[in-house]
């Protein structure tokens, strides 16, 4: 009996240790062992999630390079609660049970991250006004959140000799931040790797060896993984700014068995300006049925007619971008809590504010005014919608006092 009891207890324990508890910025979450700190933070979402420029969950071996996702580990685990001596790259550090991580609550992290952003920007051309990536550039977002006005860098920015890598992809090496994502695409998605990093240090460059054109069927996915404007779509170059186009989800039955056929079309009217893979809220290509939705070059570059596609509907783009307005979903609508606290009852109208106040008159259309609304605009007595500032009674009174 005793033995049996012990066995049961052990079995129970084995069942219990399925997830690890990790606390990130005072928010505790249960995740599977082997999850990285970054992915745990993405589950929580919001400001708790460190930015990541080089990590790409769909590309094996990526991450650890850009150092923007550095976090402080205040306690290693329940078993060994010592803090880690250095900041760690959250994208490549797996969680331990009872780990305590500080991201935005750590001054050290903010300081280091600001430093990394400065390093990334000192040699970046900052040619956003003429860069096709503007508006969906991760470095732009990062600079907006962590960068400083002005630069301390007094020297000429690094430039590279332009290299032509074929008819579909434009390589702008000066904008590259060497995240290595595109080389992983070449390694893992395309059949034959003809793309890599040459040279080293601050003169390291991505390149196709001996200027070979990238003719592989899936090479276009390099454009989608590039966080900056180093690799852009030649068929879309200078055609439009992304925020003027309307993204819609669409699909087609692609002949290529490896192509997922699900894409985002970027429309202006009925014209397809650009085709990209569908991306999630972290800017990564979405997965469908456990498979990453890479698309082939035919879908991306050649199918530029709406008749080629079946349109599924508007794309909801959840981005934290500087210009992520209009079509972009930027906020989640807060939950309605009145009914909840009133146990399902509807609130009762006690008093209509309009019966005692002149403001908030629903008959006045604020959009008809060419200026901010003033108290006089709501006055019930007169049609003061056209009153000018000089005749505003309040202003007049002030003048009289002088």
């Amino acid at each position: 009996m005793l033995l049996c009891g012990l066995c049961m207890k052990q079995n129970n324990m084995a069942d219990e240790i399925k997830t690890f508890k990790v606390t990130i910025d005072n928010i505790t979450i249960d995740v599977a062992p082997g999850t990285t700190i970054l992915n745990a933070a993405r589950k929580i979402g919001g400001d708790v999630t460190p930015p990541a420029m080089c990590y790409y969950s769909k590309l094996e071996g990526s991450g650890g390079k850009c150092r923007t996702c550095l976090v402080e580990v205040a306690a290693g685990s329940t078993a060994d609660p010592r803090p880690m001596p250095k900041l760690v790259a959250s994208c490549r550090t797996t969680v331990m049970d009872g780990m305590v991580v500080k991201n935005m609550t750590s001054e050290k992290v903010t300081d280091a991250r600001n430093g990394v952003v400065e390093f990334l920007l000192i040699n970046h051309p900052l040619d956003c006004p003429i860069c096709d990536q503007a508006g969906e550039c991760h470095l732009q977002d990062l600079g907006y959140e962590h960068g400083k006005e002005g630069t301390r860098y007094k020297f000429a920015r690094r430039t590279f000799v332009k290299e032509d890598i074929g008819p579909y992809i434009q390589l702008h090496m000066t904008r590259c931040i060497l995240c290595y994502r595109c080389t992983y695409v070449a390694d893992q998605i395309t059949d034959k790797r003809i793309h890599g990093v040459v040279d080293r240090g601050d003169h390291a460059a991505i390149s196709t060896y001996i200027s070979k054109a990238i003719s592989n069927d899936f090479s276009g996915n390099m454009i989608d993984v590039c966080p900056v404007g180093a690799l852009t779509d030649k068929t879309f170059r200078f055609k439009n700014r992304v925020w003027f186009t309307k993204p819609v989800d669409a699909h087609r039955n692609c002949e290529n068995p490896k192509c997922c056929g699900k894409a985002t079309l970027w429309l202006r009217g009925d014209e397809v300006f650009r085709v990209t893979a569908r991306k999630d809220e972290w800017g990564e290509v979405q997965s469908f049925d456990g498979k990453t939705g890479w698309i082939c070059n035919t879908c991306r570059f050649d199918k530029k007619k709406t008749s080629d596609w079946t349109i599924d509907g508007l794309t909801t783009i959840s981005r934290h971008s500087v210009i992520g307005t209009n079509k972009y979903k930027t906020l989640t609508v807060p939950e309605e809590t009145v009914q909840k606290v009133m146990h399902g009852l509807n609130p009762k109208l006690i008093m209509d504010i309009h019966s005692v106040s002149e403001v908030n008159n629903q008959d006045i259309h604020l959009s008809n005014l060419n200026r901010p609304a003033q108290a006089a605009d709501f006055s019930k007595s007169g049609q003061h919608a056209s009153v000018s500032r000089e005749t505003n009674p309040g202003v007049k009174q002030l003048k009289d006092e002088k």
Partner: protein
Amino acid sequence: MSRKLLLEKAHVEGIRHFDVYRREGGYRSVEKALQMAPADIVEEVKKSGLRGRGGAGFPTGMKWSFLAKPEGIPRYLVCNADESEPGTFKDRYLMEFIPHILIEGMVVSAYALGSNKNYIYIRGEYAWIADILEAAIDEARNNGFLGKNIRGSGFDCEIYVQRGAGAYICGEETALLESLEGKRGNPRIKPPFPAVKGLWDCPTVVNNVETLAAVVPIINEGGESYSKIGVGKSTGTKLISACGNINKPGIYEIDMTITVEEFIYSDEYCGGIPNGKRLKACIPGGSSVPILPANLLLTTAKGEKRLMNYESLSDGGFATGTMMGSGGFIVLDEDQCIVKNTYTLARFYRHESCGQCSPCREGTGWMEKILKNIDEGKGAMSDIDLLWDIQRKIEGNTICPLGDAAAWPVAAAIRHFRDEFEWHVKNPELCLTKNYGLAHYADPIHVPVTA
């Protein structure tokens, strides 16, 4: 005269060749080791207190005991002979003149670790030494100390020499492994450490040339007696590559009990500074360790004489101390300019950064440009603080220690020689023709008296 363990027979004629080496008592340790259990050899090395001679000074026995030993998966021993640290040339000497001591040490270590295939990753510029090692390996194989079933023990051991292609970064152990696998020499992100996932994802130990050579006297004399040489946790002997403004540059084997002062001025070692010049500063452990002014070099902040060993050199932390590093002892006399020296080092690290992670890739270049400006009399006062801020943001935030190695020399130069930097900024024309000189850098340090 201290005891020599590695260089004892260095001057015997023909010691490069097997016959002479064997006659002088070579390969005794292999014969002895093959009679022992591998675990006992690891235990001897642990007892000896041997610390890694490549620069970090990590206890070798402990490193060996971390090696994962899963069934059916090969383990590898890799010798790091990619000696590229400016100011360090001890491994070159060892491999060029006594190549068999490395091979002997590797066979013993390989037996202790259970590694059948072993690699020497040698710096590309040491082209002729690779040939010397290949010849020595052939001799050892012909005499039954390498190959299948060594001395009838049933242990197979092969050593291969692989030449690097001239990158400093490939001296970092994981970059070395990448390069050895035929890939671009980018350091890996740790963990996993090589002891778990190293060469071709198998458990691997990477040791410096001198570390592996030191295994020979440890096995011959026993770990216990090896640990009695030296002081504290600095056991055994250490090769120092002395260079710079000294009368007798070269390789010296010291037993880590002598003072820095004795090492620089005694005739047995560096023989003082030429032309009657005075000592200004010294980088005692290869270019990446912090530079120290003469006063802090010879005495610690506590007023004690500084000794040539791991603990004493690092006494006071980075505020007033430095590191033993790889033993590249660079002496600067009063005519040397610290700004120019720091610029030269910054240029080196900019050139050698692999470019994988952003702080090092961008920061090293930025530091170099600012230092060049200051050196050429175009600097501003704010540049000194900017340099400090840049190095602070590189240090500790990179994948591999190259970022730290690039940041430390700049930090130490500003910490101890800030007035020389300021003098350069304030005298933009004078600094092109004149030197700041010794100034107060050799003045005795005030030691606060404690009750």
